[in-house]
């Protein structure tokens, strides 16, 4: 068994525990150790990515108990992609936080690392209940992070976020109960095998459970009508937290990809493509809602928060259609949009830090400091987010457009995506020109200097949209291979045959 | 099972049940909070104590070894019931719950 597989979980866990012990250590030490942990995590995920690229499934059986009895981690291309994407994002968000956002609360780094741990478990686990536990780990850490930073603005949205997710968790457990009560198992691969044997009432129970699970994932993913907790919560979170949260909705999307392709995929007999007919129209409406929200946004952070919703709709539409090309396209776009949105949250924070009391509001204010740098970063981010050439967002959207070939779905997806892009351009150009160009005379009190950390972190995340373009070919090859792997259910099921340690030969 | 044990068990069970019920009747029937306080503090405690004892005898008689947990529970109940009553009485006096007509003396100001 390959012990690298637990590295992305153990590294942040140990880092987090260390932080819990070090509450009263000097901040420089805590920062160094925390950042070191994130770097180590990134290294480990890259190792996993390289391993996963051979296209095989790797299994890690906790306690050396074979599946379906014990909990297993499964590494495949999709998991590796999510891990690396998250680790890269985390590294820069973390770097940004060291610019001062981590002050005022000794638990920040610990919570940050625990959140990564939860995310990584979610991406790797092959067990339905363990996925619930992973969700809880990442959620509870996110609750803490969301409230980080003092002030009263984030309390109410935080409360909404927490309560809704608690209900979501309850629904998750009910779904697990329904599914277990019929299939008697929790391992995803085993479930995929067992759902084929169902009929009658049992089938309907699993169907209902599966649909409720979809609601849970849709809540995490912020799919309409379950998306309204997001904009205010994200807009008011501390910038590096908001940046990290860019990946949170993606967990829901990941879960839909993983669970629905494996258990309720094309080959699932009576349960094939469960719920996908709901998902497609909702995704398009979500996208539309996101565009409306971004047009009406009155601060940059709110604008970016609605961009998260736009991304969700954009991602789930092709996933709902379920073609291999569509999934590959969605994965490509996923990578792009996650980093871009995160970068834009950081840009918005830079704006807020340099504009005195106007913060990041889309209003006229005295000319901000460091305008050139920040406006260039915003421009790049906005172009990538709106999906204009030549940045990564364009290629993502292009892949998505290209992945549907005919029929009414194509008409709908194209119209909504393209018209949505148009209005997004309007929203960004309006916001950008007001914030960066339209100035009045006035004095801004000396802002905090833009530290190297802040510049580097923001620049790097925004710059990733260029990197993605530069490596668009290889990345697309990878996502193609990932989509193909995801569609090949039979290969995943072979993990059930993996020998345990001591059983080889 | 030893018939003597059986009789003891049955007797203790019924005694415990009766006391528990009487305590509950007291709680339900008596006219004010302070009189109601008497029911649970002893009748119920005693009733549960009797049932515990029957359990001890039952399992001991079955040869499952000496059951001490029940004794521990009983001791614990006897230790805590007066404190519960005390602190509840204090709360009641604080709130100023009404005493029944004809009560001699007065509760203290809290």
């Amino acid at each position, binding site marked *: 068994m390959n012990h690298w597989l637990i590295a992305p979980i153990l590294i942040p866990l140990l880092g987090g525990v260390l932080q819990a012990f070090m509450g009263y250590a000097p901040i420089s030490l805590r920062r160094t150790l925390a950042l070191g942990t994130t770097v180590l995590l990134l290294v480990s995920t890259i190792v996993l990515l390289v391993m996963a690229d051979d296209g095989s499934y790797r299994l890690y059986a906790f306690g050396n108990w074979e599946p379906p009895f014990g909990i297993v981690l499964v590494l495949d291309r999709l998991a590796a992609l999510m891990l690396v994407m998250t680790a890269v994002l985390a590294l820069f968000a973390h770097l940004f936080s060291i610019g001062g956002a981590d002050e005022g609360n000794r638990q920040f780094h610990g919570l940050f690392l625990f959140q990564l741990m939860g995310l990584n478990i979610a991406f790797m686990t092959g067990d339905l209940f363990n996925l619930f536990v992973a969700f809880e780990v990442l959620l509870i850490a996110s609750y803490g992070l969301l409230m980080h930073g003092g002030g009263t603005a984030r309390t109410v949205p935080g409360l909404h976020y927490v309560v809704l997710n608690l209900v979501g968790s309850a629904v998750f457990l009910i779904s697990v109960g329904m599914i277990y009560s019929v299939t008697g198992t929790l391992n995803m691969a085993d479930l995929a095998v067992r759902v084929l044997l169902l009929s009658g009432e049992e089938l309907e129970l699993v169907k209902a459970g599966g649909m409720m699970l979809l609601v849970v994932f849709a809540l995490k993913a912020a799919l309409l009508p379950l998306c309204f907790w997001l904009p205010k919560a994200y807009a008011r979170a501390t910038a590096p937290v908001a940046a990290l949260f860019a990946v949170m909705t993606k967990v829901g999307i990941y879960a839909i990809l993983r669970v629905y392709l494996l258990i309720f995929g094309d080959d699932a007999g009576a349960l094939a493509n469960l719920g996908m007919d709901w998902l497609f129209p909702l995704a398009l409406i979500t996208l539309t809602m996101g565009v409306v929200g971004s047009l009406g946004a009155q601060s940059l952070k709110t604008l970016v928060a609605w961009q998260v919703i736009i991304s969700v709709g954009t991602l789930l539409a092709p996933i709902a259609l379920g073609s291999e090309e569509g999934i590959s396209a969605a994965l490509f776009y996923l990578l792009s949009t996650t980093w871009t949105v995160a970068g834009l949250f950081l840009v918005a924070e830079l704006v807020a830090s340099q504009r005195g009391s106007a913060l990041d509001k889309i209003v006229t204010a005295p000319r901000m400091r460091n305008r050139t740098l920040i406006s260039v970063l915003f421009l790049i981010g906005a172009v990538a987010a709106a999906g204009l050439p030549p940045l990564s967002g364009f290629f993502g959207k292009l892949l998505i457009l290209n992945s549907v070939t005919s029929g009414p779905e194509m008409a709908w997806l194209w119209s909504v995506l393209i018209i949505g892009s148009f209005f997004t351009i309007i929203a960004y150009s309006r916001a950008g020109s007001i914030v960066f160009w339209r100035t009045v005379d006035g004095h801004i009190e000396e802002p905090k200097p833009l530290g190297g950390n802040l510049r580097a972190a923001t620049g790097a995340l925004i710059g990733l949209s260029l990197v993605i373009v530069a490596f668009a070919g290889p990345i697309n090859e990878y996502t193609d291979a990932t989509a193909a792997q995801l569609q090949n259910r039979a290969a995943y099921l072979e993990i059930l045959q993996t020998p345990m340690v001591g059983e080889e030969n | 099972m030893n018939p003597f044990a059986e009789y003891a068990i049955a007797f203790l069970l019924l005694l*415990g*049940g009766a006391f528990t019920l009487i305590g509950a009747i007291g709680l339900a029937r008596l006219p004010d909070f302070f009189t*109601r306080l008497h029911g649970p503090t002893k009748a*119920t405690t005693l009733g549960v104590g009797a049932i*515990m004892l029957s359990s001890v005898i039952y399992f001991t008689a079955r040869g499952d070894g000496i059951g001490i947990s029940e004794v521990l529970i009983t001791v614990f109940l006897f230790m805590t019931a007066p404190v*519960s009553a005390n602190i509840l009485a204090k709360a009641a006096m604080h709130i100023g719950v009404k005493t029944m007509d004809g009560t001699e003396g007065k509760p203290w100001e809290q």
Partner: protein
Amino acid sequence: MITIALYITIAMVTLAALLNVYRLIRGPDAPDRVLALDTLYINAIALIILLGITLGTRMYLESALLIAVMGFVGTVAMAKYLKRGSVIE
């Protein structure tokens, strides 16, 4: 004989619990409700013990012990809340 006595006892304790619930709902004051709850906890101990005797197992004795401990702490906390407001200060 034990079985009959057991059933009668269970019936009595269950009835007692019902009476406790009656008092709990009836009130009229908060201390009455807490008192009823406390009594209900003690009745629950009896029920668990009776369950253990019925099933012939001692697996549930520790649950009874825990009810005793937890019921007490719960009652104390509630009573303290009623007169002091802050349970831990």
